[in-house]
């Protein structure tokens, strides 16, 4: 049978659905629950057509409808004060939030997950993860300017880990590098809980002028709807090929790809061509095609606009001519966009497409009927209220309960049994920490990423935050950091989420930027497990509360559920990204000292807080309570760090988090290969701790800075005025070539660097 006849025969039309109410449809195979299917029938007043069923089933999936998480995510909106909204141009709900950074400039940023596809096919899964988040950014009207990649893998020595690390890192680099987007940061964490469920989160940032903001809506009856970019193939509809039955013919459905292959070149061209469209003001509304493809784009554009759209589906350009209408609606082929264009602008639109050799097809037009009508060769196959598809999916109040095991875990403090975990030799302990999978240098990964392209990168790995310039005239720019600590969240999900936010906020301030806004990617196990659901609920509550206390709103994000193998879920892993702004990126503070004789100060106090720490992790222990969080102290610390950068009071700053002071001092010394002499006695005395605790505790609201001699008085006065505990703990030494912790050990930087650098190459090179 030729493609042409397949395309014509036996299409399930609306008329057909009306006359054959008894026809059975594969709703269960498509993932709908019985009550959900009944709801679809109620909405339509008849059974759905095959094409309608395809749309409802993908749009009402967990991934697209947030049906398990919605009731909780509302807090991000509810806990936002007017003051927090001050810089928000576009909030949650759009493809990505948009933040005002001054001078008429705005920034949009968002983090998303591509976890499961990356486990199946690491290179393509990670690559298309970058592709997807970048299209979200373009669809806001922005030029993408940077990406970041928070990653989680299983144990470093597990036999499957090298496959995932190689593929995922190469995929992120392969796609991002080809798009010309500098990679300015991310995370690499190894923990056996992620063995069968690696986390691949990708963050993208874009820049735009206020007046260039584009929204995903289709208004103006009579305006044309156009699909452009790559052709539509059978990508991402593997499980849904049951829909072949919609055509009721006996020929076997043709094979559908198990994974999607990304085409970064097509996306790069798509970016340039969209920017030309924006510049020429040729599009009224625009939407990227991601999950749920055309189903999502048409129903969202229509319901966010005048409410109606009329589309002829046979106009879609296909890569695989055997696709049925339902499959075309569900296809997740990459590198596609949909736009709304006035009739007057059609020629201008086509000229830009032709210049970039991008394929496009006019699908139909915007109407004011309140209905989304899709036809197949003139026959109506979809007739729905688009809101019911896009926004009125099921919402579940899933039961949740605090895990019974949590009390036992929280009671099992590492500090209590510290004798066993306390090293005899601090020098060896620091070396072991800095060589450990989570604390070792990540250069083997980050050297595979372009950090230079676009010429605006002011800070990147290994500094605390990535910093890019936005405006070449003034130096206006942004800083971003992403953080999460799954172990803290496992011990206490409410506090864990707050700690993740605090760390990202602190990192941004450490670089010298004023924190402005938040994005998050919430990676969890199955929402159908009440204990996981409780972790999720606590996480959202914690993050929303902490955002309110710090005065930074969540502007968008993503939820990834079902990250579990068998009955075992990953640690709750809320990846939090904080965006900050600089008046002039020339003021950014690097994370290493360079000038001989500068004074080294420790900001903040240290308590005996080793539960959940990297050190405890190295000793195979996970129990107790995560470190205590004082958000007022975090705010003060951030204000100090930002002021210091503005007024030139410090030359280097590094926040203290995983690995504590030991990691902080080591990284600062290694940054430019410059040593230091450190004394811990006064800190130990003031805080009532020993040297081991001073070095390895992960107490929050701390940072180390280096202060030029001429600035010490001013620096101390400022900290005193803000009543923030500060202590001089040493001095930069360009001669000794070592990290010298007096009275305890001297660690030559060569030895330290070798230990720090060797780990990833040893496992993966």
């Amino acid at each position, binding site marked *: 049978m030729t493609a042409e006849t397949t395309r014509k025969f036996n299409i399930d039309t609306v008329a057909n659905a009306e006359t054959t109410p008894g026809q059975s449809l594969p709703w269960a195979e498509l993932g709908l629950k019985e009550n959900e299917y009944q709801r679809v029938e109620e909405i339509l007043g008849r059974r759905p057509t095959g094409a309608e069923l395809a749309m409802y089933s993908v749009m009402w999936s967990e991934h697209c409808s947030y049906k398990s998480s919605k009731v909780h995510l509302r807090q991000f909106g509810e806990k936002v004060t007017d003051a927090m909204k001050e810089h928000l141009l576009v909030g949650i709900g759009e493809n990505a939030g948009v933040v005002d950074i001054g001078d008429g400039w705005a920034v949009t940023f968002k983090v998303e997950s591509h976890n499961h596809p990356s486990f199946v*096919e690491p290179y393509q899964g990670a690559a298309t993860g970058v592709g997807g988040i970048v299209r979200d950014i373009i669809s806001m009207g922005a030029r993408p300017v940077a990406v970041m990649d928070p990653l989680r893998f299983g144990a470093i020595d597990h036999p499957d880990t090298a496959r995932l690390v190689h593929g995922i890192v190469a995929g992120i680099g392969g796609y991002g590098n080809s798009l010309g987007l500098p990679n300015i940061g991310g995370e690499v964490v190894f923990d056996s809980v992620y063995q069968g469920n690696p986390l691949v989160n990708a963050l993208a940032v874009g820049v735009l002028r206020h007046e260039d903001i584009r929204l995903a809506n289709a208004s103006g009856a009579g305006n044309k709807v156009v699909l452009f970019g790559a052709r539509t193939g*059978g*990508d991402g509809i593997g499980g849904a090929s049951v829909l072949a039955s919609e055509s009721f013919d006996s020929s076997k459905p043709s*094979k559908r*790809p198990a994974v999607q292959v990304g085409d970064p070149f097509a996306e790069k061209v798509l970016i340039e061509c969209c920017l030309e469209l924006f510049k020429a003001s040729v599009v009224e509304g625009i939407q990227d095609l991601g999950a749920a493809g055309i189903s999502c784009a048409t129903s969202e554009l229509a319901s966010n606009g005048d409410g109606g759209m009329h589309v002829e589906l046979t106009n879609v350009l296909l890569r695989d001519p055997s696709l049925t209408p339902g499959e075309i609606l569900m296809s997740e*082929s990459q590198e596609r966009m949909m736009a709304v264009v006035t009739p007057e602008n059609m020629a201008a639109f086509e000229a830009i497409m032709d210049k970039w050799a991008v394929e496009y097809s006019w699908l139909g037009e915007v109407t004011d009927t309140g209905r989304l009508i899709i036809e197949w060769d003139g026959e109506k196959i979809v007739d729905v209220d688009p809101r019911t598809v896009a926004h009125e999916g099921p919402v579940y109040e899933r039961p949740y309960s605090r895990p019974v095991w949590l009390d036992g875990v929280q009671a099992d403090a590492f500090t209590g049994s510290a004798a066993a975990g306390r090293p005899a030799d601090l020098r060896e302990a620091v070396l072991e920490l800095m060589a450990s999978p989570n604390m070792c240098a990540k250069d083997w990964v980050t050297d595979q990423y372009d950090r230079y392209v676009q010429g605006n990168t002011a800070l990147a790995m290994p500094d605390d935050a990535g910093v890019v310039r936005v405006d070449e005239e003034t130096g206006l720019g942004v800083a971003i950091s992403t953080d999460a600590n799954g172990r803290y969240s496992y011990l206490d999900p409410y506090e864990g989420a707050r700690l993740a936010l605090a760390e990202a906020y602190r990192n941004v301030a450490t670089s010298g930027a004023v924190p402005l806004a938040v994005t998050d990617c919430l990676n969890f196990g199955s929402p159908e497990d009440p204990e996981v659901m409780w972790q999720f609920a606590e996480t959202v509550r914690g993050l929303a509360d902490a955002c309110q206390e710090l005065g930074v709103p969540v502007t968008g994000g993503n939820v990834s559920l079902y990250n579990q193998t068998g009955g075992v879920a990953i640690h709750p892993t809320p990846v939090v990204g904080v965006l900050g702004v600089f008046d002039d990126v020339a003021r950014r503070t690097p994370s290493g000292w360079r000038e001989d004789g500068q004074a080294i100060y420790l900001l903040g106090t240290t308590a005996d807080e080793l539960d959940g720490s990297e050190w405890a992790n190295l000793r195979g222990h996970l129990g107790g309570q995560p470190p205590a969080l004082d958000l007022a102290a975090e705010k003060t610390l951030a204000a100090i760090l930002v002021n210091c950068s503005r007024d030139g009071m410090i030359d280097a700053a590094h926040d203290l988090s995983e690995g504590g002071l030991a990691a902080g001092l080591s990284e600062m010394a290694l940054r430019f290969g410059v040593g230091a002499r450190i004394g811990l006695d006064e800190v130990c005395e003031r805080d009532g701790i020993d040297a081991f605790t001073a070095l390895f505790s992960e107490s929050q609201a701390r940072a180390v800075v280096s202060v030029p001699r001429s600035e010490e008085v001013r620096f101390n006065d400022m900290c005193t005025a803000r009543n923030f505990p500060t202590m001089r703990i040493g001095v930069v030494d360009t001669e000794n070539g070592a990290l010298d912790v007096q009275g305890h050990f001297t660690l030559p930087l060569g030895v330290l660097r070798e230990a720090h650098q060797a780990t990833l190459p040893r496992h993966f090179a």
Partner: protein
Amino acid sequence: MPRIVVDVMPKPEILDPQGKAIAGALPRIGLTGFAGVRQGKRFELTVDGEVTDELLEQARHAAATLLSNPVIEDVTRVEVLEEDDQ
């Protein structure tokens, strides 16, 4: 020395960006006769001595595990290369 050749092609249903880019370039250099292009890989495994059945079996195993990614590629040939076939 005798060689075993292994051909690996992207699965037909999988997007092949490389083939697509070439297909786009051909008309620009005046070659308009082709409806599509797909780009795959060709491996030549050199054998020191004679090609035994066991070695062919090894080559098939290599083709299925190391030389192709079964999620996106098909092994389309594992064969001893005839001398004149170079």
